[in-house]
């Protein structure tokens, strides 16, 4: 033990002068640390000294003029519960001394057998033990404060499920007072809550477990774990329950909102489909009859009239293309039933061969990787994604030796990043976001055909499959579209599209 700063104040309560002198001499001989000895020969004096001074330890003879036996100890202990007491006994007082130990005395010593080594040692140990006990008490208080103020419930049972602890402000939510359930059987108390009783049972069987359960209006998330003794055997269980009612309610609200949104989106897309579909009919009339006019009355129309009619016709063509693209757009946005395995190698091969005429016309060299992974998705959507990207790559390419490459850049975290790359005119960084909007075009109409909905279709189809699309490009430096899609995991059955 290290040297102490202040002297240790020992209060000796002994009415027999002979015994007192003996003890004083034993302590005077004690080496190593500074001791200050206070003497009291009656209980009242002792109590007075205890209340006024900072006594480190009490050496207590139980037989005093104004108090006898256990009463003596109890009075001293009650007066200064933090001060360790060493009971001094005679040969026939051992039983009382033992009882004093039970009641909180640190130690007892036989007056007859004291020696100069034993007494200082006993004092030292008594002080240390009290300090340790003090530290434990402080920790317990801290824990108790935490438990009582946090919105949790801390509970523990013994090996049979008898509740030894049930505290925490989280109990307030179910109207139970702290400590009210202690001493009762958990299985009886949780009788109506099989989740909770089951959790306690599992913890007592050695399993760490978590469960969310509803107690009336309150939702708790409960973590339980076995409590083991020094030998590692299960001595009971400990549980912590957290009030998650607010979170559960928020989740339910979120689910409802998602449901509403999905339903509205689906209605909107059905609506869009119907509208586009019905628009095609009068459009057919416009296109056809302006053409008939041109054909049948060619000689009766002057150049101006023919020009008017041709403009009308071209507008009709544009309108038709836009409607058809809106139809596709609506369709890729519609929910589909299940994700299936799509062989991307085959799909890309089919797409390229379907556009062979354009490829040959433009003299484009096409390179396709050999290792395209299968994706979890939908054939129609995949066709629209790669068909439009490939079509654009062919279209916006006036390079001397046009080249289009399709492949997979990486596969990670269940997703494959495909790329469609061309060496065409590229897209200025400023427009990288905007080009995905419907009917957005970055060039004059006469320069390139098409109405510009292709990329909007790509984006929506990609998103419907749960993927992402982005563009790497700079003006004059070609373009690479990166499409990330979920890969098909082997052995997985087709499942419903994720929300």
């Amino acid at each position, binding site marked *: 033990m290290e040297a102490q700063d202040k002297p240790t104040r020992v209060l000796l309560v002994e009415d027999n002068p002979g015994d007192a002198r003996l003890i004083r001499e034993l302590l005077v001989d004690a080496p190593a640390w500074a001791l200050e000895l206070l003497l009291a020969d009656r209980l009242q004096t002792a109590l007075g000294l205890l209340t006024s001074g900072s006594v480190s330890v009490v050496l207590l003879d139980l037989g005093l003029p104004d108090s006898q036996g256990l009463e003596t100890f109890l009075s001293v202990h009650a007066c200064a519960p933090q001060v360790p007491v060493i009971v001094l006994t005679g040969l026939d007082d051992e039983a009382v001394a033992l009882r004093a130990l039970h009641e909180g005395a640190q130690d007892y010593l036989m007056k007859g057998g004291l020696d100069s080594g034993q007494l200082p040692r006993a004092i030292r140990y008594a002080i240390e033990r009290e300090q340790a006990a003090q530290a434990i008490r402080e920790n317990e208080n801290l824990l108790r404060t935490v438990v009582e103020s946090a919105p949790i419930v801390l509970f523990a049972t013994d090996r049979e499920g008898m509740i030894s602890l049930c505290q925490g402000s989280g109990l307030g939510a179910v109207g139970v007072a702290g400590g009210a359930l202690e001493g009762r059987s958990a299985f009886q108390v949780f009788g109506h809550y099989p989740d909770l009783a089951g959790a306690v049972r599992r913890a007592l069987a050695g399993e760490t477990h978590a469960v969310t359960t509803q107690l009336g209006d309150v939702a708790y998330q409960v973590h339980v774990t076995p409590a083991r003794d020094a030998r590692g055997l299960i001595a009971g269980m400990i549980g912590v329950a957290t009030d998650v009612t607010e979170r559960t309610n928020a989740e339910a609200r979120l689910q409802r909102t998602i449901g509403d949104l999905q339903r509205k989106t689906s209605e909107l897309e059905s609506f869009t489909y119907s509208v586009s579909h019905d628009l*095609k*009919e*009068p459009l*057919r009339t416009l*296109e*056809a009859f302006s*053409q*008939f006019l041109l054909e049948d009355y060619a000689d009766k129309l002057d150049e101006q009239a023919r020009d008017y009619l041709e403009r009308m016709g071209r507008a009709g063509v544009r309108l*038709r293309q836009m409607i*058809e693209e809106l139809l596709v757009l609506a369709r890729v946005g519609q929910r589909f039933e299940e994700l299936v395995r799509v062989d991307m190698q085959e799909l890309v091969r089919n797409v390229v061969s379907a556009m062979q005429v354009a490829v040959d016309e433009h003299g484009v060299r096409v390179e396709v990787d050999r290792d395209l992974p299968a994706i979890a998705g939908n054939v129609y959507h995949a066709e629209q994604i790669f068909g439009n990207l490939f079509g654009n790559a062919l279209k916006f390419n006036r390079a001397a030796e046009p080249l289009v490459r399709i492949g997979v850049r990486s596969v990670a975290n269940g997703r494959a990043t495909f790329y469609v790359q061309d060496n065409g005119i590229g897209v200025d960084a400023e427009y990288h976001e905007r080009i995905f909007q419907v009917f957005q075009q970055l060039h004059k109409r006469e320069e390139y055909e098409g109405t510009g909905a292709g990329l909007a279709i790509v984006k929506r189809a990609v998103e419907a499959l749960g993927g992402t699309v982005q563009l790497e490009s700079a003006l004059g430096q070609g373009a690479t579209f990166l499409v990330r899609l979920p890969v098909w995991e082997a052995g997985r059955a087709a499942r419903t599209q994720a929300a």
Partner: protein
Amino acid sequence: MGRYRPVQVLLVDDSPDDVMIAQRAFRASRVVNELTIARDGHEAVELLRRASNPPELMLLDIKLPRISGHDVLRQVRADEALATLPVIMLSASQRQEDVTESYRLGANSYIQKPVAFGRFQEILEIFATYWFEVATLPE
């Protein structure tokens, strides 16, 4: 192979513009035929049953007033006298449900009405060559 004589075709379509477009395309096609028009399903079935010179092939739209093209198809297939009449759906719809249902009800084929008139003429050429030159129609 087939005949080269005027073939009687019944076109069932309630859109006067589409009818006019079809008539023009038929006139321009090299396979001679005579086109009869019915504006709704009831008229069509009447025409089929009563005509002295009944049509040998029917082009049938799905979207019709009162009863749909599919209803007409059911009636025609149920009628012993008309059961073998070649019926080709000619509809603006490209919905798979409409296509499959048509075949299941006994339509011989299904053509989607093109929006561009130019396509219509191309389509008619292929259609007419196939049905009036290559194929044999039932008597």
